[in-house]
């Protein structure tokens, strides 16, 4: 039976960890991002512990190694949705920029809602101005690739082809598709952030999922 007690003190995780002999982790730190660190105590034995928490279809694994907390999102959930560019953003987050990823993603959400509204209106017109539509899609393609949203970006590529061909029906189909992909991604990211917040705020204990 493993147990874990940790709390946040001045934004740093401090706690007492009990070794779980059953866990053998191969290269445990690969793909994990440090969330919070406490000073290493040379008097305590090395401890490693892995917990899993989940909400909807987002699974997070928490790894405690030598008192440091590492967080790993289930890669399968994001496979195909977010590419390496998202990992680049996570690397830019640190103590001096603790909310960087959330901020950039929020900017992306704001930008996207506006763009999708503009696109909807532009395609509702009697005489569609395809150059205007293309300009919006170009912007959406740019911002989605800057956060690594590859599925959204790929729909934008097809969308631009339809604009170039002045294909109204094709463009409407792409609009529908891009709205769908965007809402899927938004959902996953919001769940991920909410879960991270809950984990960080959970002073006391982390629920252990079997």
């Amino acid at each position, binding site marked *: 039976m493993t147990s874990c007690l940790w709390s946040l003190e001045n934004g740093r995780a401090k706690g007492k960890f009990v070794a779980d002999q059953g866990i053998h982790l191969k290269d445990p730190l*690969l793909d994990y991002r440090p969330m919070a660190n406490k000073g290493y105590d040379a008097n305590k034995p090395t401890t490693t512990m892995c917990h899993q928490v989940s909400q909807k279809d987002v699974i997070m694994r928490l790894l405690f190694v030598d008192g440091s907390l590492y967080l790993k999102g289930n890669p399968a959930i994001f496979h195909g949705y977010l590419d390496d560019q998202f990992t680049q953003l996570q690397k830019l987050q640190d103590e*001096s*920029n603790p909310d960087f990823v959330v901020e950039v993603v929020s900017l992306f959400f704001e930008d996207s809602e506006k763009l999708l509204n503009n696109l909807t209106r532009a395609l509702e017109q009697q005489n569609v101005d395809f150059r205007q539509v293309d300009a919006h899609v170009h912007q959406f393609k740019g911002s989605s*690739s800057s956060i690594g949203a590859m599925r959204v970006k790929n729909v934008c590529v097809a969308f631009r082809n339809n604009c170039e061909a002045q294909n109204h029906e094709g463009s409407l189909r792409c609009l529908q598709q891009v709205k769908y992909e965007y809402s899927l991604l938004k959902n996953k990211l919001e769940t991920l952030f909410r879960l991270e917040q809950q984990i960080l705020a959970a002073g006391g204990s982390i629920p252990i999922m079997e």
Partner: protein
Amino acid sequence: MVFGASSSSSKGMTSIDKRNDGNNNFVAERNLSALIVDDDLIVRRIHTTLLTKLGVKTQGVENGKKAVDLFQSGDFFDLVIMDMEMPVMDGPEATKQLRAMGIGSMIVGVTSRNLESEKQAFMGAGLNDCYVKPLTVDDMIAILNKLNNN
């Protein structure tokens, strides 16, 4: 001093910590300044944060004309990250104008597509280098290394 990104870190990640010389071998020799020219707010934010983390004083503008105006008013930047497609004045035009003014700063172009023809045309305007956006940590370190060696 050398800027380098270590990919042999035991964590499997290139971490950035300008206080720590260990993982990424980055030490700013002198106070470098950079100008990010891009109409996309998100890209500006990402590039600004990246450069700031690497110890570079950074400013951002949303089109080529604003960049040219800044230089004309006497501001100077060691590095310009120039987006290709922008309203009002695009990257190639702004680059040409800056070079015509005699600006010798390092100008690095960024394009949204990895098309050789596009990159070559942009390079022809007077760029030192051209990348696909957004720039990664490793890209930025390579650029800053070159800047420091000049």
